[in-house]
């Protein structure tokens, strides 16, 4: 199968190294104030909730959204590569190494799109995709977790891309190129868990279209794993 050799350099950067999402509750509140700016109502500022994160409006918010999905994927796949269950076969481990590698590339590319200097903290230092709710000690558990996340992200992309309505051609193009790779990944994971399930009717509709998930649906699905942080997609372009 794959001739992949494990490269230590590929290991996920620790989240503290190159961190994201500077939009805190404070700036989310200021957005709300601007939105309310045409009224003369005096708004009493509410205390900032340090765990409330709002995706920025516009195309950078869409890139952030994709970044968070890639962060979830890299965290999961890195864990499987670091501590594979004993019953995960050699060939399957090689697939997970590929998944990890590709998602690291996606995450770093998206981070680069958000900040080419790498100087900006994109998410808080203690922000993480928490894996404790998954059973990662068995092959079945690993594959179920991977399928859940891979299908979710694959379902997000066909909705995400048309939401780019501005001049962000580079962002749009990069995400377009990633979208079919997400679909390939999801198919590969499904085929490991249940051979031949690569495009079953639970992910493809009767017209032969991939079933999709909106940003709200995706973030709701990911919410338990990002807790205590709460991510708001309310500022993204509609429909979210």
């Amino acid at each position, binding site marked *: *199968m*794959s*001739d992949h050799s494990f*490269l230590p*350099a590929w290991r996920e*950067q620790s989240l503290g*190294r*190159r961190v994201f999402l500077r939009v805190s509750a404070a700036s989310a509140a200021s957005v709300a104030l601007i939105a309310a700016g045409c009224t003369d109502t005096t708004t009493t500022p509410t205390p900032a909730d340090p765990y409330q994160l709002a995706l920025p409006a516009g195309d950078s918010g869409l890139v952030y959204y994709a970044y968070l999905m890639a962060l979830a994927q890299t965290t999961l796949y890195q864990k499987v590569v670091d501590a594979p269950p004993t019953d995960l076969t050699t060939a399957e481990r090689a*697939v997970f190494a*590929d998944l990890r*590698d*590709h998602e690291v*590339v996606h995450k*770093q*590319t998206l981070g*680069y799109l958000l900040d*080419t*200097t790498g100087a900006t903290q994109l998410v808080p230092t203690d922000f993480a995709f928490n894996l404790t709710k998954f059973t990662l000690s068995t092959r079945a558990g690993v594959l179920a977790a991977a399928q859940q996340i891979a299908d979710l992200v*694959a379902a997000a*992309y*066909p*909705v995400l*891309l*048309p939401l*780019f*309505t*501005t*001049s*962000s*051609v*580079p962002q*749009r*193009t*990069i995400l*377009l*190129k*990633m*979208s*079919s*790779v*997400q*679909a*390939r*990944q*999801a*198919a*590969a994971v499904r*085929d490991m868990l249940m051979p*031949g399930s*690569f*495009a079953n009717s639970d*992910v*493809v*509709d*009767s*017209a*032969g*279209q*991939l079933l*999709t998930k909106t940003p709200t649906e995706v973030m709701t699905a990911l919410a338990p794993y990002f807790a205590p942080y709460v991510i708001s997609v309310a500022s993204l372009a509609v429909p979210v």
Partner: protein
Amino acid sequence: MNFLHIIDQLSAVDSDALDRLDTRRSVFSSLTTVAKRTALASAPALIASYFSKAYAGTSAGDAKDVFAYALTLELLEEDFYKKMIASPYFSGAPTAAQGAINQIKKHETSHVALLQKVLDAIGGTKPTNITFKSATFATLTSFSAQLTIAQLLEDTGVRAYKGRAGDLLGLADVTVPNVGTINPLQSALQIHSVEARHAAHIRTMRMQSSWINGNGDLDGMDHYKGAIPESTTTQSGVNLIAANSITPNTTYTAKDAQASFDEILTATEVLALATPLIGA
């Protein structure tokens, strides 16, 4: 979606791109030679050319043309799988393999039906008499030989939809009788993602990686080449396999840089590959 609004926003393209390129200077901060600085100076033109190619189409923004093009390719795929299922080699294939081909054929039939309805709804012309040339099919004298063509068709299909996505951006939703309201771009991308799942599975059936990483037995074929080949390792003007390109202290391998992104094919490139396969 407001089309005029999008045109208005498109006018901001240049300034936005220049901002991005300016901040990209940091990437080159460690470069000191005149030659490398010259490379940086010429980057905007290269990138602009790159992205115009990425979104090239024969008639930009014409949904009728894009969907007729998509239907042509789907009809070709559907007929190929029909012939595959009818061939004497099919019954000798493993049950799981037969199931997969039946499943994929079912989706291609659904895609054909959907695209026909969309073309009816938008007043487009539906291509007809698109079949996989029998004489060519007859040269495929084993199930595995047929799977080789299936892989090429699916991987090409993914690249073909991708190449026309820009032409559908910003088009208004369409009400399609017996289907509902669809967004042209989203619908095309949903089909494209299903094609990618097909491609991944057929590649697995052929003992290939699910993604295109340059190590595949067919990666030298024209289907993986084009103006922006699948071997591309530069994205958004950044060479991903250069040291520290997007991650400090990290150099990505060409294999992973290639596999992480599927590239487009233009309509001209796709039709050059597909046309010889179409016939009675």
